[in-house]
């Protein structure tokens, strides 16, 4: 409270700048060109005509709230929550997050490139995400089934990351961070827009976190003195990213690798064994071409390559197990968007060749190979979407996509949206759509360890969603959103046991999982640069058969983000509050609800080009634990307490 008062008095003590708004119009253009403006005061994009409930997080938010990973960004958005098991970050959307779901039910795009790899179909949002969040211009979070345009994985929604460009830097930017738990991070970015039209940037980041020693009472025994995993929560990442565009062409390349220690003795491994770790590396190369053909037609096409490699070391008392998988793929897509009379038509198609999908699981000494799978597969799809202005203020958005997977067959997914603007400032949206997730290679070919067997007959999971949204703009920068929805998920892919031989196998579950939810969000921006986003989300996710609430599914969530200059343009404060309700664990226990508070102070340019920020995460040192998957003995994993970060960014 004291802090908030300080915050408030700081805001009140603002001095006025030299120019009064009324004088602006009398200034000559040369002088107007020299005024530094506050650009915060607008929504990046009007979403009232989008056929979905969309949230946008900008680079300004990432700075103001001290976000370190994409998981930090997504956690701040209404209806989204994360779990962390000290190996990976998992994303829950609208009350749904299955154990062991490596983010295959959400599609993550970076400038149109599909990040989900082709073995587990997983998208990484933690320190294993290949892009440094500092390079993000904005993140658009589109809720609801997106398969009618994007195909598989766009199950609960699509997260579209748009990166910064060379001209956003126009020079060199260096950044350094020091943070709690022995963390440091450095970044160097160079970007330019040249006179000849060539625009380019390159960036490299190094991240190193030593991590705390962690106590797990489950392992407290004479053999494991005090149950402490020592120095095993380390996390190291390197990433490079480059982009060049000329004319209508853009070439993007990225590489990242991460190595993460495992302090939790997952999969029954030896506790506190320093050999436990996983590494992931990702490579991407994407060539894009965009062209406006004549007045009414825009066409774009991509050709891309993606590579993913994972290996994990799992030490057991008798042996050491090495788990490895590789995925390599290339693909092409095209899209044409045209405007004809009252129609806005989009047509597109894509083809992807997953030419390497390989998994190898073996013990190192003595050498035993349990699984050695080498596969390849392909998929293609095409879609059409039309937006028709029916009568004044009424829009119909209809889309349909056909997909073929060489592994699981065909899928057809429609989407219908009716958008009505009864008044200038109000939009009502009625949406219907379906989406699917094709079984991934892991599910088709293997279940954990030697106790499993392939599951060749798996069908895609399906979701059908109904949504009603009211958006009202009290002012152009003051929006209230009410969102009611119902999700019906069928043929869910789940691990089971074959009664015939007792082996583990993946099956399509019978019956539905149903979610009913309501979300209310208020967003406001002020002329002086203040920004507020507050939301409450209620979601009830139940298994139709048993009628029981799903595990890892909080019923209530409330969030508040407030960013405000507290001392002219010299200092901005960003306050974040996140309340997440209790969640059921796999063993039927519950983790307690918690309120997290994060605070970031961000300086303006104290010295030209220099910005400094200081953040405190989990300000009140709230002790909380999150449910984790069955590969852990622990039912829930305790999360970090209070920690700090100091960051500087210098541009020259």
């Amino acid at each position, binding site marked *: 409270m004291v802090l908030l008062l300080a915050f408030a008095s700081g805001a009140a003590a603002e001095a006025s700048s030299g120019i009064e708004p009324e004088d602006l*119009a009398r200034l000559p253009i040369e002088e107007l060109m020299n005024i530094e403006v506050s650009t915060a*005061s607008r929504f990046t994009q009007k979403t009232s005509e989008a056929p979905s409930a969309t949230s946008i997080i900008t680079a300004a938010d990432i700075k103001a709230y001290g976000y370190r990973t994409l998981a930090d960004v997504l956690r701040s958005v209404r209806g989204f929550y994360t779990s962390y098991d000290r190996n990976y970050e998992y994303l829950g959307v609208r009350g749904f997050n299955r154990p062991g779901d490596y983010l295959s039910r959400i599609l993550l795009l970076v400038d149109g490139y599909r990040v989900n790899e082709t073995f587990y179909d997983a998208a990484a949002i933690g320190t294993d995400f290949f892009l440094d969040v500092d390079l993000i211009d904005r993140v658009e979070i589109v809720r609801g089934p997106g398969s009618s345009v994007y195909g598989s994985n766009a199950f609960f929604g699509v997260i579209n990351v748009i990166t910064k460009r060379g001209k956003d830097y126009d020079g060199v930017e260096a950044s350094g961070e020091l943070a709690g738990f022995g963390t440091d991070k450095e970044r160097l970015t160079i970007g330019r827009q040249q006179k000849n039209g060539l625009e380019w940037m390159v960036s490299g980041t190094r991240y190193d976190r030593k991590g705390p020693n962690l106590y797990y009472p489950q392992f407290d025994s004479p053999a494991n003195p005090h149950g402490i995993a020592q120095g095993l929560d380390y996390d190291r990442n390197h990433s490079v990213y480059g982009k060049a565009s000329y004319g209508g062409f853009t070439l993007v390349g990225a590489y990242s690798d991460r190595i993460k220690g495992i302090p939790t003795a997952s999969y029954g491994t030896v506790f506190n064994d320093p050999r436990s770790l996983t590494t992931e590396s990702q490579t991407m190369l994407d060539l894009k071409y965009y062209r406006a053909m004549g007045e009414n037609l825009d066409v774009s096409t991509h050709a891309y390559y993606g590579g993913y490699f994972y290996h994990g070391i799992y030490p057991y008392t008798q042996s050491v197990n090495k788990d490895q998988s590789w995925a390599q793929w290339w693909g092409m897509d095209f899209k044409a968007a045209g405007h004809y009379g009252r129609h806005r038509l989009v047509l597109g198609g894509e083809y992807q060749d997953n030419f390497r999908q390989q998994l190898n699981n073996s013990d190192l000494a003595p050498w035993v190979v349990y699984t050695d799978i080498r596969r390849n597969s392909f998929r293609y799809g095409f879609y059409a979407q039309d937006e028709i202005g029916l009568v004044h203020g009424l829009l119909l958005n209809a889309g349909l996509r056909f997909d073929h997977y060489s592994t699981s067959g065909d899928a057809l997914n429609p989407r219908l949206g009716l958008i009505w603007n009864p008044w200038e400032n109000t939009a009502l949206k009625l949406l219907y759509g379906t989406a699917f997730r094709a079984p991934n290679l892991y599910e088709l070919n293997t279940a954990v360890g030697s106790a499993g067997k392939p599951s060749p007959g798996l069908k895609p999971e399906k979701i059908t969603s109904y949504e009603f949204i009211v958006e009202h703009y009290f002012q152009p920068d003051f929006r209230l959103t009410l969102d009611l929805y119902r999700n019906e998920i069928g043929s869910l892919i789940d691990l089971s046991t074959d009664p015939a031989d007792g082996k583990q196998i993946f099956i399509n579950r019978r019956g539905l999982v149903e979610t009913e939810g309501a979300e209310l969000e208020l967003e406001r921006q002020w002329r002086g640069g203040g920004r507020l986003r507050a939301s409450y989300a209620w979601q009830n996710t139940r298994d139709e058969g048993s009628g029981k609430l799903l595990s890892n599914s909080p019923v209530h969530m409330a969030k508040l983000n407030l960013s405000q*200059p507290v001392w002219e343009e010299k200092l901005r404060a960003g306050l974040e509050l996140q309340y997440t309700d209790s969640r059921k664990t796999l063993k039927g226990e519950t983790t307690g609800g918690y309120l997290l508070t994060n605070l970031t102070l961000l300086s303006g340019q104290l010295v030209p080009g220099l910005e400094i920020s200081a953040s405190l995460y989990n300000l009140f040192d709230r002790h909380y634990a999150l449910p984790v998957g069955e590969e852990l003995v622990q039912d829930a994993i305790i999360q970090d307490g209070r920690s700090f970060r100091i960051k500087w960014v210098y541009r020259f």
Partner: protein
Amino acid sequence: MFRKLARFLPFILAVAQAEGASPSEYEVKAAFIHNFAKFVQWPMSSGSNTLRLCIVGDNPFANALEVIRDQAIDGKHWEFQFLRTPQNLDRCQVAFISVSETGKLNAIVESLGGKPVLTIGDGEGFAERGLIINFYLENQKVRFEINPNAARRAGLAISSQLLKLARIVTVGEER
């Protein structure tokens, strides 16, 4: 928990009400628009005693247009019109095209044909795509680009004083 949050809220809202110091982006842009109009010559006088500025699409100005509300050019005061959809743009002397209209830009340029409307864009590449003037930001400062071909098509004469401050966009052939 909610009771706790409710106790915080009044403070938070009070903080949020306070306003910052430097002029907002759109106050400055409004002042630019006023200046542009001074440096552009329309082929014939409309006869009315106002200058009509149309804001097309999403209105990003909020109260920022107050900056120029009482200003006049050659005795003509500004009159603001907010158009949800880009229709009847030829009745405007100046049309500000909001970034929300990105998808409709080609249709807007086409519908205007050679009508003498000073189009001012607020989105990336809007001048390349046929608007006469387009705003962009550089280091938190407002900049603008001019597409002289588009001005010629509209029959508007732009003063060289304005042209020399602008980034010139040369795409868009004369038809």
